[in-house]
Each structure stands twice: as structure tokens, then as C-alpha cells.
């Protein structure tokens, strides 16, 4: 036995106790510091996350507002449509899944793949739609096989429904998925990726009214995302109802009257400027867009030479041709150049400088006064009067009538057209004005370009005693309680100061155009109501591009594309006018022959409906 100090009592061992205790305390301090950091410093952030953890914000789509015609007939509404979508995070084997879906749904894998690629831009929580507006049979087929289709779900989404798609396509427009650029724009907080927004026409112009406000449901969920209870719900606010001024029956009558022809027609109420009908042909089917247009369909629409997507009533530019002669006549009357009893000899042509300008009637009209000149559309009379008037006065008169400038129409894309003047030409092409150009402009050719809508407004102004009215297509906007939130009152752009006698002289001419046996527009004559109007046949001076030339060689469309446009403007009743109409038939060859009967149909249908 030795008596040295036991190991247990060595000072170094005692010191180890202190060190161990210290180490333990330090570790606990570290733990407490971490707890302090989490529970006190990061508290707000983490508390927030715990709230978000257990709650989900579900968005309920607002039903888009319906649109009615002037009699309350539904033009567009919503209907529930099934769509087959996939949740991205639930997909395990995409190739396999698409293979299976392709067989089940009878679509190509490429199509599914394309939809998938398109959908990848959507936010992650949003299912990617693979097929939109599928019928019930397919839905059932998917449901039966749902066990083999992980991640595939059936959604019900409201889509636009068009009872009469052909008649109102260009007025209503269509919806499309919101683009990234639109999402980034100022109003973006209202939208999320994948939302449908109005792309053209009324759907676009009144997007804010039609859209409504999305509803929200705050729900509490457990870890599997199962709904436990609703914490808060904010119902969606449906989009507003829009009542248009157009008459569906009239729209349909216009479409029927045009038949296979292309062109546009606008009918206005002469006292209010309300658009009673606005049709552009050929049309497209907006339902194609509602269910998701395929790239083939889209390509076909774009490739169509007759531009079905274009609303020709407001974006088509046409030389007004002889329908412009009323303006020349009024300007000349005001300037005392064309007094009602002034007579001009028409020998079939007029020589100005080195050029010879021919009248459409090569034999000539002989002695011609204003009424005859309008009735028989004598070009030489207006060449002469136009020359004396000068281009600037002519342009000023035309501008007063709303030609060559934008009317502030509410549908997007309205074009201004052109009303040339010396000033205009210098600015545009930096060249002096030539007298020959005045001659051409006096019969509404050359640089003069107008839209069918402008021609209708001009005609209405002739009919209502010189009031140029702003054309309006929306009558009122109502909320869901049928309370009018916005009413569109007639808006006078300007009152023209033509003497009643001058207007009367021109109107007499227009009356004769239709009702005189020698009139060029007698095909617009109606038994039940007196129509006044004016024909126009505008030469197509458009040069075809080399590419088009090449493409069209030997094609029957060559003569078509070079055929003149047929125009007709009219109002009725002649004595106490109510409706003004402008009809442009693209490559229709003759205004009197082709456009006048269409105008006649429109007017006839208008009075027929009103009589009921």
C-alpha cells in the first residue's frame, strides 16, 4: 500500500470538474441564444410562416360580365367547361403519363407536350391545362382511370359562350391568356399568370368592367392540404353587364346580306350616334379562342387573305370614291361655286394640264346640274367643282364631317384614314400639291382613305341636319343588381353650319340616286320606306407586293384582288331620317350593283323589326 494521494483527489481532477461544468453551461447558453434568436428575434417572420403554413388562399374566379344587345338579347355569357389539367409537382413519369393520356383522350402526345410547355410559364401552384372544354364522355374516361393518372385533375372553369358567334365576333372580340408583359404592367396585382384577359374589341376595351373581382377563401388546412375549416371568405364580385347599342337581328341580317362577300357595314342611329350594327366579313368564330385555339386554326386565320381577324368597319381603309361627292357638293355650295342651278357640260372627260380625267360614263352626261351630278354620279361635274374649290377647302370640309381623323370610337384599333391637303402632302412626302390630285380627290380617290364607320358618321350628319355625332357602341354598364353604373349619352362632336337649303339640295340628290329610275343606286329602293343614298365604286390602286404577285400567278384571286370596291351609303326614311348605313364590299366591283342591295336589306330589316 502506498500512501500517495488518491487519483480522485488530485487537483487536476478537481479542475476537470470545473471545466466540464463550464463546458456544459456554455453549451446551454449557446442553445438558449439560438432559442432567443428563433423565438424573439425571428419571431415575427416565423409566426407569419406558421400562419401561412396552415392557411391557404384559394382564389375564386369572378364570372365575367355578360354582354347584351340593345334589346337585352344575350350576345356573350359564360358557361362552365371541363378542362383536364395536371398538377406539376404530382407528376412522376411525364412521358409515361402523356402516353397514357394520349391513348385515353385521343390526342397526340405532341399536343399534350405543347400544352405542357405553354403551361410552364404558369405559377407552380396553378395546374397546367392540357385540354380545355372537353366533353363529359372524356371526363368520365379520365375519372375512371384516375388511379393510373397521378397528378391529373378535372377542373371546371367558366369559359365564354357565344350564342351567335358569327354575328358579333368583331364587336365582342375574344379572350386570351395574359401575357407576361401584361402581367408586369401597372394593374398587375389584379391578375395572376394563367388568367384570361380581353385581347381585342369590347373584351379588351372594357376589360376592367367585365373582369369583376376575384373572390378569396382563406382556409385552414392540415399537413396533407385537407380542408379543415373556412376561416374567411370573400365572394367574387361578378363582372359588370354591358348593354350594347347594336341589334343582334340587324347584325344577323347584315351577315346574311353579305353572303360570301368580304367587307364591312355600319348602321347608325342618326340622332344619337348609336351603332345599330357593325359587321366585318369574313368573320371568325370566337368560340375557337374560348376553348383554346390550336396553332393550325390560328395559322389559318392569319393566312386568310381576306383578313377574318380584322374589324374592317373601323380598321379597313377604303377610298370613299363617289360617296365623297356630297362633301364636295356641300363645300362648293357654301363657297357659291356650285349653285343649285349651275350647269356643267360633261363630255366624258376633263383635261387638266397634260392629263385627261375620264368620267365613269365615257359618253358623257351632257348638261349636268348638282342634282343630276349626284344622281348619276357624274365625275366631270365634281372634277370641275373640286378644281375651283381647291384641295384645302375640300379637305377642311371633309375633316368637319369626321373623315380622315379618329372619331374616338370606344373599340380599340380605330384608324384615322387620310384626308390629304397641301400641308399634309408636304409633311408626308415633302412634295408640292398638283392640280390633278385635287381632281382625283374630288371623286374620293387618290390619297383619300376612310373607314366604313367614318362614312356612316358622315351620312348620319347629312341626314340629321349637320350634327356630327360620336359613334357609340356601348349603351350602358350595369352592375349585378341591374343598377346602371355608367350611361353613355349621345355626344355631339360638332354642329356643321351648312344652310338648310344647301343640305336640302344634297339630300335631294341622294334621294334621286335611289328613287329616280336614272339613279345609280336604285337597287336600294324600298317600298315601305323612302331611302336616300349614294353609290361609290373605288378603284383598287393597291400595288401587290412581288411576293403576292408571284404567289397569285395563275390564281383566280388576282382578278379578285384587283377588282374595285363597291360602296354605298344611305339613310332612311328620306323625309325624317332615323338610320344611316355605310356598306363597303371589298372587290365588289360596283357600289350600285353589290353594296346598294345590302344597304337595302339592312334598312328593310331595321324598319321591319321596328314595326313589330
Amino acid at each position, binding site marked *: 500500500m502506498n500512501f500517495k494521494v*488518491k*487519483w*480522485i483527489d*488530485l487537483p*487536476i*481532477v478537481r479542475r*476537470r*470538474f470545473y471545466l*466540464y*461544468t463550464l463546458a*456544459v*453551461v456554455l*453549451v*446551454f447558453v*449557446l*442553445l*438558449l441564444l*439560438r*432559442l*432567443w434568436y*428563433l*423565438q*424573439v428575434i*425571428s*419571431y415575427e*417572420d*416565423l*409566426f407569419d*410562416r*406558421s*400562419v401561412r*403554413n*396552415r392557411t391557404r388562399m384559394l382564389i375564386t374566379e369572378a364570372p365575367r360580365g355578360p354582354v347584351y344587345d340593345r334589346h337585352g338579347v344575350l350576345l356573350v355569357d359564360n358557361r362552365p367547361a371541363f378542362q383536364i389539367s395536371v398538377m406539376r*409537382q404530382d407528376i412522376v413519369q411525364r412521358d409515361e403519363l402523356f402516353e397514357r393520356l394520349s391513348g385515353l383522350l385521343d390526342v397526340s402526345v405532341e399536343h399534350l407536350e405543347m400544352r405542357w410547355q405553354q403551361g410552364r410559364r404558369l405559377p407552380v401552384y396553378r395546374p397546367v391545362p392540357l385540354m380545355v372544354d372537353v366533353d363529359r364522355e372524356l371526363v368520365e374516361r379520365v375519372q375512371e382511370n384516375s388511379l393510373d393518372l397521378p397528378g391529373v385533375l378535372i377542373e371546371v372553369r367558366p369559359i365564354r359562350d357565344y350564342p351567335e358567334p358569327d354575328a358579333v365576333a368583331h364587336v365582342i372580340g375574344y379572350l386570351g391568356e395574359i401575357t407576361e408583359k401584361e402581367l408586369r404592367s401597372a394593374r398587375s396585382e389584379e391578375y395572376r399568370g394563367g388568367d384570361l384577359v380581353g385581347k381585342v374589341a369590347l373584351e379588351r376595351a372594357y376589360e376592367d368592367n367585365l373582369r369583376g373581382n376575384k373572390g378569396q377563401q382563406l382556409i*385552414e*388546412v*392540415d*399537413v*396533407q392540404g385537407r380542408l*379543415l375549416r373556412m376561416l374567411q371568405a370573400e365572394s367574387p364580385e361578378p363582372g359588370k353587364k354591358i348593354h350594347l347599342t347594336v341589334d343582334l337581328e340587324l347584325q344577323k341580317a347584315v351577315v346574311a346580306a353579305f353572303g360570301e362577300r368580304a367587307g364591312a357595314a355600319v348602321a347608325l342611329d342618326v340622332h344619337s350616334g348609336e351603332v345599330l350594327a357593325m359587321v366585318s366579313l369574313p368573320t371568325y368564330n370566337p368560340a375557337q379562342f374560348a376553348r383554346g385555339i390550336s396553332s393550325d386554326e390560328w395559322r389559318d386565320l392569319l393566312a386568310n387573305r381576306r383578313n377574318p381577324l380584322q374589324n374592317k368597319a373601323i380598321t379597313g381603309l377604303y377610298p370613299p370614291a363617289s360617296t365623297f361627292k356630297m362633301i364636295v357638293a356641300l363645300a362648293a355650295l357654301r363657297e357659291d361655286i356650285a349653285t343649285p342651278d349651275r350647269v356643267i357640260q360633261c363630255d366624258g372627260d376633263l383635261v387638266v394640264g397634260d392629263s385627261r380625267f375620264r368620267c365613269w360614263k365615257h359618253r358623257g352626261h351632257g348638261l349636268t346640274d348638282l342634282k343630276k351630278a349626284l344622281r348619276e354620279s357624274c365625275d366631270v361635274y365634281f372634277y370641275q367643282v373640286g378644281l375651283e374649290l381647291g384641295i384645302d377647302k375640300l379637305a377642311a370640309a371633309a375633316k368637319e364631317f369626321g373623315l380622315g381623323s379618329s372619331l374616338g370610337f370606344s373599340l380599340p384599333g380605330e384608324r384615322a384614314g387620310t384626308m390629304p391637303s397641301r400641308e399634309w402632302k408636304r409633311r408626308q412626302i415633302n412634295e408640292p400639291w398638283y392640280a390633278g390630285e385635287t381632281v382625283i380627290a374630288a371623286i374620293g380617290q387618290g390619297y383619300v382613305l376612310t373607314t366604313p364607320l367614318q362614312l356612316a358618321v358622315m351620312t348620319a350628319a347629312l341626314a340629321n341636319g349637320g350634327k356630327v355625332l360620336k359613334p357609340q357602341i356601348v349603351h350602358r354598364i350595369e352592375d349585378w343588381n341591374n343598377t346602371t353604373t355608367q350611361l353613355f349619352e349621345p355626344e355631339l362632336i360638332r354642329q356643321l353650319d351648312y344652310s338648310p337649303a344647301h343640305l336640302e339640295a344634297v339630300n335631294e340628290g341622294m334621294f334621286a340616286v335611289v328613287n329616280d329610275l336614272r339613279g345609280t343606286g336604285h337597287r336600294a329602293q324600298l317600298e315601305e320606306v323612302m331611302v336616300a343614298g349614294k353609290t361609290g365604286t373605288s378603284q383598287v390602286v393597291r400595288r401587290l407586293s412581288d411576293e403576292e404577285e408571284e404567289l397569285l400567278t395563275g390564281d383566280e384571286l388576282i382578278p379578285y384582288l384587283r377588282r374595285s370596291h363597291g360602296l354605298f351609303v344611305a339613310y332612311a326614311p328620306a323625309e325624317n331620317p332615323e338610320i344611316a348605313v355605310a356598306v363597303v364590299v371589298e372587290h365588289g366591283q360596283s357600289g350600285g350593283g353589290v353594296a346598294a342591295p345590302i344597304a337595302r336589306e339592312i334598312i328593310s330589316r331595321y324598319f321591319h323589326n321596328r314595326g313589330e
Partner: protein
Amino acid sequence: MFDRRLVYHFDWVLLLTVLLLAAVGIVNLYSATTSWTHGGTPIYLKQTIWLGSGLTIAMLVCLFDYRHLQYLAIHAYIVGIGLLVIVAFHGRATMGATRWINLGFINIQPSEVIKVAIILLFARLLSKISVPQGFAIKDLWRPAFWLVVPTLLILKQPDLGTTVMVVLIALTMLVFAGLQRTTLIWLTILVMVTGVLGWFGLHEYQRARVRTFLHPEADPLGSGYHIIQSKIAVGSGGFFGKGFLEGTQSQLSFLPERHTDFAFSVFAEEWGFAGSLLLLLLYLFLIAWGLYIARRASDQFGLFLAIGVSAMFFWHIVVNLAMVIGLLPVVGVPLPFFSYGGTSMVTMMIGVGLLMNVSMRRFMF
């Protein structure tokens, strides 16, 4: 033969501390499992039964003088190794790991047996040393061998958590006994090399846990889920907590493993920093008391026994808490007296019994 001094020296402080911790744990388990609707004995009741069994075992451990245990250490160790070998071939698999052995009436985890056996064996080994300068590397071959055999067997199950615990407990005891400077350096190098090699030996799920720990937000719905949800639970408790039964993270099941490894998250969410602070102080006191018992032990074996048990408490507590609050990767280590589980409760209660034994017999020579 039963010495009255034993009653006189009974360590009421230790018993009360442990009972307090277990009681808080049971209350917390009640809250953690209220949303469970399926039938059967409620978890908190089961845990109470386990607490009772554990206390009984602790008292039994007290009965015999711990000094006799040093001769039993090697037997306990051999039985433990034997069980580990059996489990390697006939174990019951849960969650992809084979850790259990079915004895008919009870499932036991041999890795828990080995924890206690290692403490006993190392205490016995270290009770022999008398040199103050500590171990040289050449002196360590025997403890190293004893440690490596069970460690490899547990690692094979695989059970990274227990492996780490066993190694840490043994190292803590060795370091207390004293290591020469060169030994310390060699050990450090060894740990680092093992770490690097171990990375390639880890199961994919274990590697994922480590990666997740480094970047939990990279995969919030996958492997990072546990850590993120636990941090949200703890942090959203704030200073005073959301209140008993009011923790949304746990009541709505966002917290995984909330009655076992993540029981503390439930507590921290409902009782806040204030509650957590008190609980941690209680744990700190428990460990400090364990060291105090070691300090007052009447012999070297008792000292190392108490050090070993304290180390077992310390490492379980610290690794579990650090994991739950995002300071360490997720390794399956329960919080002593707090997480639900009979095995953990019994092992820890054996530890309590050992501590108490040493404490009661501090004046007996």
C-alpha cells in the same frame, strides 16, 4: 442488512428533478397527440406507464451496491454484443432500419443495452488509472476495441444517432480520465478521417440529412421539411408561446415526429422562450447535479459511473435540442424523459438509478 443510512442519504433532489421533467414531458405529449383520433391507449398514458416502470427499474438499480456492478460490466457488455449480433440477423425492421429484438413480451433495443454496458465497462476500466498525466495513444487499444465492435454493429443497423451517442459518451469519459496532448491530437485526426470516410459509408438518407441541414431551404417539401417545420414551430411560439394546446404547427400536424424526436418543438411553440428557458435550466440542473454526484463519489468507479451517466444525459439533451432548433443535422436522438418511447425512458431511468446509487453510497467505504 438494509442500511438506514441509505434512506437518509436518498437523493430526493435527483428524483424530483427527473419527476418534474417527466411530468412536463407527459403534459406536452398530451398536447402533441390530441389531434390523434385513432383508438388505443393514449400516448401520454402509455408514457406515464413507462415512467412508472422506469422508476421501478431505477429503484431496483439502487438496491445493490453499485460497486458490485463493476464485476458485472463485462457480462453486460457481452450480452449486449450478443443481442446486437442477433438483431443483425433476426431483428424487426421499422422505418428501414433493424434495431429491435422481440423477446415475446417486450421489444428491446440492444443498442440501448450497449449504451449502459459501455458506461459500466469504461467506468471499470478507468477506475484503475492512477497516473495524473493521462493516457498515451498506446494505452487506448483496449477501450478502442471495446468501442469499435458495438459501434460497427449499431452503425450497420443503421442507427447513426445511437452510434454517435455511444462514441460521445465513451470519449467524454476518456477525456475526463485525462489524455496526453499527443493522444488528443491523434484522436482529433482520427475523428476527421473517420468523418471523411464515413461520408461515403453513410446511407443515402443519412447523407441527405446532412446536406439538408446545410441547406434546408433547398428542398422545403422534401428532406428539409423536418427542420423548416420545426424551426417555424419553435420560432412562432415567441416569448410567451401560443398557449397549451394552441400550437398550430403541432395541432395541425405540420410537425413531424412531434411526439418523439420533435417533442421539444411542440413545447417551445406552446410555451415560448419563457417555457423553454425553464425547461433548459431544469436539464442543465440535472446534468450539473450528475457532475456533483460524480464529484462526491466515494470511489473512482462511482465517479466515472456518474460521469458516464451525466454524459449520456448531456449528449442526448444537447444533440436533440440542437437538431430541433436547427443547429445540428437531423439524427434520431430522443430527448430524455421528454420524448415518447419506452426504450429511451428505461435506459435513462437505469442511468438515474445508477446516479442515485452512487449518490446514496457516497459515505460508504
